[in-house]
């Protein structure tokens, strides 16, 4: 149970972010917090995978899918849920430890942490792109089908 405590913290931190980004509707706040908690839950559940990058990538895919789903149901921009939900995955720790290594003149650690951070950021970006592309293709297909009588 202890292992999953960060999910609760992610939920509450995302609630804070909902206020920072001025989301007003309680349902939206709740759903974006759920998205945030799930993002970390997926990351933890994939603990068996060796590669950090793959874990981030898959977690991002789940988050993006959820955001697009909420967006379709509630007819709101997916950005609202995505921006909040993805925050727990942002590699802020990597950025900090890279800088710390740089200040300590430990360039090997700096390079390692820096590349790791960049790779995780890339994985998140790739995850968002894949889902957005697929959703858009599906939307285009549906629109073209509706146009035909």
């Amino acid at each position, binding site marked *: 149970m202890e292992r999953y405590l960060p999910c609760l913290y992610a939920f509450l931190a995302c609630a*804070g*972010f909902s206020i920072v980004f001025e989301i007003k509707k309680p349902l939206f706040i709740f759903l974006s917090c759920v998205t945030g908690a799930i993002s970390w839950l997926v990351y933890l559940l994939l603990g068996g995978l060796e590669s950090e990058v793959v874990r981030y990538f898959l977690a991002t895919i789940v988050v993006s899918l959820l955001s697009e789903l909420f967006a379709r149901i509630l007819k*709101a921009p997916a*950005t609202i849920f995505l921006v909040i939900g993805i925050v727990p995955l*942002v590699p*802020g720790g990597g950025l*900090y430890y890279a800088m710390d290594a740089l*200040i300590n003149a430990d360039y090997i650690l700096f390079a390692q942490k820096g590349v790791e951070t960049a790779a995780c950021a890339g994985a998140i970006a790739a995850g*968002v792109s894949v889902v957005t592309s697929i959703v858009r293709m599906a939307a285009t297909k549906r629109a073209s089908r509706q146009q035909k009588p």
Partner: protein
Amino acid sequence: MHSKQVELCLNFCCELGRQLIRNGAEIYRVEESANRMLAAYGYQEAEVFAVPSCIIMSIHYGERNYTKSVRVKTSANNLDKLDRLNALCRRVCAETPEIGTALAELKAIVGRPAYPVWLSYFGHGCVAAFFTLFWGGHFLDAMIAFLCGLIVKAAVGYMARLNANVFFINVCASMLLVMVPVALTYAGCTGIHTDKIIIGAIMLLVPGIAITNVMRDVIIGDFMTAISKLAEVLIVAMAIAVGIAIPFGLARALFGGI
């Protein structure tokens, strides 16, 4: 008479687009929304071009061309307004109300009050505190991080009012927030996790909306927007890194390492 109508419609669409950008919409959403609205009002021959800092719209109607460009300066990132603007845009496309009515609704959305200041401060504090716990900090660390969150909010708010640039705002804010745990450590407080506190509070400065929107704009093929937004993301990340480095470097130079 007709030309008056066209110009009113153009004004409305430009203003809606500007507000969409200001409140954190992806650029493709702005272009798409404007195109749809113009089409809904019967202007089929319309072109919309938007980048994060500017929107240009032109309509060919009757014998004439009408063009308007608006400059978008500050961004506010208010997701509630974004949602309402998006809903307004959908309704305009579906019902094509009088421009006057639509404009009044737009003004009502723009004028919606933000959260009260104390709640906004509380929100910033909570983000920092809970992310500190999230990254493995203890309760005391979370309390200190809460304070750091308040400092970030105060610093960013104050400097934004003075029209400081994005780089400088982020350098100063991250410098101030890093000073708190560093000062406490040098003052002899043992048992606090400087790293966890800083990582938790830094989350407030990470440009989340820009990062997600960059990717979504790349997908649509809007590389110009993506590059300018990416530059913003990188500059902010660099500013945060510099802001972290300065207090550590200073402390080490003045008082020696711990």
